[in-house]
Every structure is written in C-alpha cells, then in structure tokens.
C-alpha cells in the first residue's frame, strides 16, 4: 500500500467550501480557531467567469452539471465543484426559512433553538452580510413582470425574490459564476472573510476518507494531483455537499446516505407574439407562491441561447432551430416542487463515487402534473402563444385545454426532470448538533445535515443551521 504524504493540517479541517463550509470556516476563524479549508474544485476569480458558458460549466460544476440521480426517471443533478461550491453557480435567491418550518423541525427532529430569537438574529446577520434585498423594480426583466401581472390577473400570490447581491449589473450569467462579483457567493464574501481572520484555503484536494482511531477521526486522507496526502486535525467539518458528504462518511466506515430529499425542477419554454428581450434585466426576480402549500414555486429562469437549446433538446433540433431563430420572443420558466419521497446516496460498485437514487412517487407525479398545469395557466394568462413542456415526445402546446391534457397524462418515465437542490442525505447519521454519532469530533455541516428539503431555495437555511452547529461546538468546547 502506498504511504500517504503528510500535508500541514490544522486544529479544524473543513472539507468543502460551499455555503456550509464557508460559514463554518469564517465563524471558527473569527472565534480565533486555527482553520484549514480543503476544496476539491479549482479556485477562480470573478474575472474568470466571462468566458464560454459551456466551458465554465465543465470547470465549475461536478460532472459538468449532469450528475445522474438514478431512478424513474433519471434526474440530472447540478452542483458546484469549485471554491465557493454551489453558491458560485446558483441564482443568489436567499429566502428566509419560514418560522413555522423551523418550529416544526425543532419539535419533530429535536433540533433545539431553531425557533429561538438567536436563530432569528443569525438569519438577520446573514442577510446583512450577504446584502440580501429585492431587485430594484427597474431592473426586473420583462418575463418576470409578465409572470407577476398574470398572477395578479388570476388572483394568485407572487413576490419579488430576495437576492444576495451588491450592485447586480444584470449580466445574466448566474449559472456560470458572476463576472462582476456582484453576486455574494461564498467566493467573494465568507471565504475572503475567513481568510482575513486567518483561515487557509487549499483547492484541488479531494477528501477520500477520514482516518478513524479509537472512535475519533485523526486525519483526512485526500488526493492531490494524483498523490495521496494525509491531513491531520483535531476536529473535522464535513461540508462536501449532499452527494459527497455521505460518500466520504461511507468510505470512512460510517453508515450514511439515507433520507435524500430533493427539490425538482420542470422547465418550460414559452413563446410570445412580442419581443421580451429575455436576456435583459434580472431573471429570477419574481416567484409565484400561490401553490406553495403544495410545495410548488413558479418563476423565471436564466436565458441564453445555450440554455434555450438545452431546455428544448428533447423536442428535436427542428424545434430548437425554429425557436432560437427568434429567441427574443421566448423565455424559459421553471416550476419547482418539493419531492414527497426520500432517496438515498449509496456507493458505486467498484468505484469510490456516490450513487444517488430517487424515483418519483405517485404524489410527485401528481404534483408535477399540477405544477405544469398551473404554469401553463399562468403563461397563457401572460399572453404566451406556444409552450414547450418538459415531457419527452410532447408536441408544442397552443392552448390551456391541450396543456392540461398533456400535463395530466405525463408519466414518470416521460418527465424531463432536473434538480439543483439535494439535501438531508446525512441527517440520519447525526445528533442534534450535526455531530456524527459515534465520532464526537466530526460534524457534518452542509445541505446534507438538514432534516428534510425546506421547500425554498435552501442556501440561507444551510448557512443558518451551519452557524448554529458551530456556535454549539464552540460553547461545548469552552
């Protein structure tokens, strides 16, 4: 067996640099602790985000943005794999977790303090630090206003979305990194703050497994440029995300990966009679929340010919060419809903890779049909002339009755489903402070520690929960 080369460690080793890892690193470093952050992906700067979108997808995303979640149907999952994690490639939508959700989590899962004033203060601090605000109305793009107006016409509830940004210039490149640095991803916010407080960040290191001795982790074994390295530490914060964290725990002999929760996305392309300039203005500025009680959120999605072609791919090249030829009259919309079932993240046979699984439940299919029907109703009310639904083999739709028929007959196998929010895949292995049961010095502090999918864009919830766990650790250590 090859001997691992020793790499300088730290008292706290944070594995991963996304929303959970960056929050952990900053709070620990600002409390005077010695912190090392290791990140599998590369470190880029805002100036690097101006290039080809498809090249950037290859650089910034794990598996180029198409990690398969196996099931019926197979779901394409996208997550960041770079310094800053998925916060670099998300839409910066920072919704506060509703008070009733936190209260339920506190009572149902024994997560003390979630409904407290302290949690409220932590959320308010995060919102200040990330400059959370709604976009000035003049910046909101036309497609978003169309949604808001149509919602008002139907008597549906819609809201301007809170986003973490300082001086957004509407470059409409959120999914491939903000080239102006306006989006307050961890790359430009919490990680620099952590470094200022003394934390070290090393990119290009993939954690392979924790080395466990007598019920404690003593080091993390990792791969760096093809070489196996060993990084010693006293405390280990596993923040590799919903797929990699359970994979790391499993590789370390700890049972994890059950209870995977998901938000599922269905993308719809709509064509209008008039010019929408869909690439201008802030794209994801409005969310229609009328059906939030069914876990359904409706909104706009980033627009670019690349995304238009990708969204229409299953409709055939002829459709792609026709719609792209007058792209100004089209826009992309997304219906997001919370999956009702639980999946799992196992280990791939003969390969040290996660094997995520989820199959749509009967409830999911019913919710997907309803989400598509409601989206069609909203878009036709907004004046759409033609819709392309994410159902493989479905024809273009020109009226609401046909949309209802087609959506109502959608089956799991024919739904074209994406996800960018996977959560809760380690929760069952953790105590109420995020510590791994049986390993007192290992905390999982990312999306995988949440007890379930929150039904909203989860970044702020993840950061607040990560902050809570760091606080509890510091209190118990003092």
């Amino acid at each position, binding site marked *: 067996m090859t001997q691992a080369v020793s790499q300088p460690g730290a008292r706290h080793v944070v594995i991963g640099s996304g929303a959970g890892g960056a929050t952990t690193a900053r709070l620990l470093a600002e409390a005077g602790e010695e912190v090392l952050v290791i990140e599998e992906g590369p470190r880029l700067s805002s100036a690097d985000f*101006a290039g*080809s*979108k*498809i*090249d950037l*997808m*290859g650089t910034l995303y*794990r*598996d*180029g*943005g*198409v*990690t*398969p979640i*196996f099931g019926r*149907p*197979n779901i*394409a999952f996208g997550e960041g794999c770079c310094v800053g994690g998925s916060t670099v490639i998300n839409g910066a939508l920072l919704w506060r977790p509703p008070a009733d959700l936190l209260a339920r989590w506190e009572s149902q899962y024994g997560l003390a303090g979630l409904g407290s004033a302290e949690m409220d203060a932590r959320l308010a601090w995060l919102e200040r630090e990330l400059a959370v605000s709604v976009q000035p109305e003049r910046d909101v793009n036309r497609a978003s206003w169309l949604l808001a107006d149509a919602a008002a016409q139907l008597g549906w509830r819609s809201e301007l979305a809170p986003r973490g940004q300082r001086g957004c*210039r*509407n*470059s*409409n*490149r959120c999914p491939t990194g903000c*080239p*102006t640095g306006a989006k307050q991803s961890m790359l430009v916010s919490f990680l620099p703050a952590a470094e200022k407080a003394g934390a070290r960040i090393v990119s290009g290191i993939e954690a392979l497994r924790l080395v466990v001795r007598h019920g404690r982790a003593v080091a993390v074994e990792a791969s760096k440029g093809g070489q196996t390295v060993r990084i010693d530490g006293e405390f280990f914060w596993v923040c590799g995300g919903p797929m990699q964290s359970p994979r790391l725990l499993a590789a370390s002999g700890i049972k994890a990966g059950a209870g995977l929760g998901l938000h599922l996305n269905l993308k719809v392309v709509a064509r209008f009679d008039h010019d929408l300039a869909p*690439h*201008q203005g802030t794209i994801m500025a409005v969310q229609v929340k009328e059906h939030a009680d069914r876990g359904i959120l409706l909104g706009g999605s980033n627009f*670019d*010919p*690349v995304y*238009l*072609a*990708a969204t229409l*791919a*299953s409709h*055939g*090249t002829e459709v*792609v*060419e026709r719609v*792209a*030829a007058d*792209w100004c009259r089209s826009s992309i919309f997304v219906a997001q809903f919370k999956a009702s079932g639980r999946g799992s993240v196992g280990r*791939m*046979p*003969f*390969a040290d*890779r996660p*094997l995520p699984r989820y199959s749509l439940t009967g409830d999911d299919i019913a919710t997907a049909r309803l989400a598509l029907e409601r989206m069609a109703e909203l878009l036709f009310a907004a004046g759409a002339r033609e819709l392309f639904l994410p159902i*493989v083999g479905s024809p273009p739709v020109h009226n609401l009755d046909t949309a209802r028929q087609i959506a109502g007959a959608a089956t799991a196998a024919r739904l*074209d489903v994406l996800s960018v929010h996977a959560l809760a895949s380690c929760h069952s292995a953790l105590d109420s402070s995020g510590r791994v049961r049986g390993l007192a010095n290992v905390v999982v502090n990312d999306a995988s520690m949440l007890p379930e999918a929150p039904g909203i864009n989860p970044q702020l919830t993840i950061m607040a929960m990560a902050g809570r766990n760091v606080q509890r650790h510091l209190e118990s250590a003092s």
Partner: protein
Amino acid sequence: MNLWIAAMAALAPALLSPDGGRRRKVLLAMADSAFPAGALACGDMAGRAALVVESRIDGMAFPMRIALGILLKLFDWSAVASCGCRFAEASRSARRRHESMACRWKPIPFAELLRLVRTLSLMVCYDDPGMRRSLTYTEPEAQR
C-alpha cells in the same frame, strides 16, 4: 480506424470549409443523431463538441461511462449502416440491435444517455460565437 470515422474523415474537407452555416448544420445533424464521436473528424466546432461531451462523460458515474462506451460503439455501427443520416432514420436492423442491447442492459438508461449527448451537442453549438452572431444575440454585459 472504424468505418464511420473513415467516412467522416473523407467528408472533412467539405465540413471544414469557411461556410460556418454548413458546419453548423452538420453539428445539428449530429445532435439529432446523438453521435459525438464521429465529430472528432469534423473540424473545430464539432470537434469541440465531441471533447466537451467526452469531458463531461469522463466525470460521469462509472456504469454510465461503460454504458456510453457501448452506446457509441453501437452508434458507430448504425451510423455506417445509415450513411451518417439521423439515428431516427437508421436501418431497422440497426435499431433492432439497439433495442436488444437496451433490453440486455436494462438498468442502463440508454434513452437518457441519448438525450444527454444530444443536449450537450446542442449546447456547444449554441455557445459558438458564430452561431450567436447569426442569432444577433449580444451578451447583456457587453451592451453596457
């Protein structure tokens, strides 16, 4: 070198002509046939499509990569059989072979792989500066 690559290499001079529109059409046809491997012989843009698809696939789960390897082998065969035409127009015998393989490898999502390759090929095509110019698409940031 298999027959398909040889056939594409023979066509390369035409595909490499300055007529970007023709190259785009070839790439779009490839997106329809979901056949990136042959694109390696077809010049800059199509070659880039193949590389992007392959680099994405390099990062994919192990069984998916095996499945795709098999799939591309099958496409080599069917594409030759159909003289490089669209997969949908491939000969019945080729399609029967696909179906029988798909049955044998039932847990492997062939249809999704096809969709993935098609999607990636289209994304590369619409990321191309020439294509974007032809659509008169200008980046919002550049307008400021």
